[in-house]
């Protein structure tokens, strides 16, 4: 389980996270939602040690984050994190060189599924193809947790459907997933937990199934209530 306990983060004088606490269990999809600047991406980066926090603690299966955890947790940024001049095949070779848990077989399977060409250079990919490659590189690692930052951002409807289909496939089964997104329509039925953020504060967190059963509301209904106030 990934635990955040009273995490605070400032950028200069601006408080980006003001005591955020939540748990993201393994085997479940936890969605962080919120308007721009709510602190969603900062939370993911803080978990990955890509931005230091001022106070609070982050624990992964009970331990503090450390460099070796990058074999167990994958962060899929909203931008491709490979040099633009690299070919997709070179990206795969790079990942295989550094990560013991890189699954080449799955990478090639996803390459075919997403109709990507291994000879294409990273900077020649369209936004949708880049998003698919990004997701592919995350899924091709045999990791326990995946953190996905806006996987649908700027992606056309067809690519969005392809990406959404992955979340209901066996490729994510058993993994703990935290994802940030505004666009949850396609994946709403797959979400287990939702954490709603506003200006670095958690305004509401709930299990989506409980919300449906007890209050008869969908995640989108709750989002409307919370953010349209």
């Amino acid at each position, binding site marked *: 389980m990934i635990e955040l306990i009273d995490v605070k983060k400032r950028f*200069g004088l601006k408080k980006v996270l003001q005591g955020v606490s939540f748990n993201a269990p393994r085997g479940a999809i936890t969605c962080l939602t919120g308007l721009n600047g709510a602190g969603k991406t900062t939370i993911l*980066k803080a978990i*990955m*040690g*890509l*931005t*230091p926090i001022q106070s609070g603690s982050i624990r992964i299966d009970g331990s503090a984050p450390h*460099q*070796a*955890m*990058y*074999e167990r947790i994958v*962060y899929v*940024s909203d*931008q*491709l*994190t*490979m*040099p*633009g001049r690299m070919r997709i095949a070179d990206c795969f070779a*790079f990942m295989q*060189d*550094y*990560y*013991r848990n890189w699954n080449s077989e799955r990478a090639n399977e996803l390459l075919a599924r997403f109709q990507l060409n291994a000879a294409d250079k*990273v*900077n020649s990919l369209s936004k949708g193809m880049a998003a698919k490659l990004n997701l592919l590189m995350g899924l091709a690692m045999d990791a326990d947790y995946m953190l996905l930052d806006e996987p649908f951002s700027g992606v056309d409807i067809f690519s969005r459907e392809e990406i959404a289909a992955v979340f209901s496939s066996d490729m994510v089964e058993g993994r703990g997933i935290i994802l940030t997104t505004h666009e949850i329509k396609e994946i709403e039925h797959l979400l287990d937990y939702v954490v709603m953020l506003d200006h670095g504060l958690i305004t509401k967190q709930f299990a989506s199934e409980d919300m449906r059963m007890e209050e008869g509301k969908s995640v989108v209904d709750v989002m409307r209530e919370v953010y349209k106030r």
Partner: protein
Amino acid sequence: MTYWRLLNFELKRLALPLGILVVITTILQLYNAYSTANKEMDYAHRLMKVEHLSTMEQYVQAHGYFSYSSSFDELSWLILSIFICAAFIGFYFVFIWYRDSLGRHPFMTRLLMLPASRRNLYWAKLTAPLLVMLSLLALQQLLLPIGDSIYQSIVPSEAREDVPLQMLILINPVLNILLSPNIVALLLYYGTGITAVIILYTGILLERSYRWSGILAGLIYAAAAIFVIVIPLIILQSNYRYLMMETQLTIFYFVLLAAVSSISVWFSQYLLAKKFTI
């Protein structure tokens, strides 16, 4: 292992610029030897005509020998080629951190998430440009005798005074720093250069960790580090210079370089591991 992989990766990225620098340096320096020799021969033949001298021996008696050292002029192609290489390496020491952090594809995010200590990344980014610099110095060592051979093939032996290459290096102030035959001086120059790069890296990592306030902190850190390093020079210029012998001052300087470098490396690695912000 991760260090060697990262170093290999960085060197691969540097292969093309290094290749271009090798070609530019080779062409400029060999052309330098060729054109200097031809200019000198043209000049000698013109003067022989005007002064009605029939042999080169007569010319030499009247005007003296030619020497390859004349192609080491401060405004020569040779110095230009060294300047181009130095400017590139200087630029690359900064660029190596920013090329991966900025732009559409922030590769630094990936590098920071490698499942190994971030110290490997620091050492790879420090040693890759240094290895390129050493490669260019090796090329320089190679080009000097080749240039000398070209010069000798154009200027006849009776017209030239052959100066040993070591002497040529001593004559030129730039080569005297880069390829100094004095081992202490060489260590002094390269020790100072590498320490400067290490301080620069600390400044860059402060900026990458704290942005605007990091720039200020970086400048203050660099000023403090430079002040510590120049203490022996301040002593040398002061009334207390008689308190220490030159050898003692040199050792003191090396100790300070080692201390500043060690602290800066430790601090940089701390920043990269704990404070670096994407």
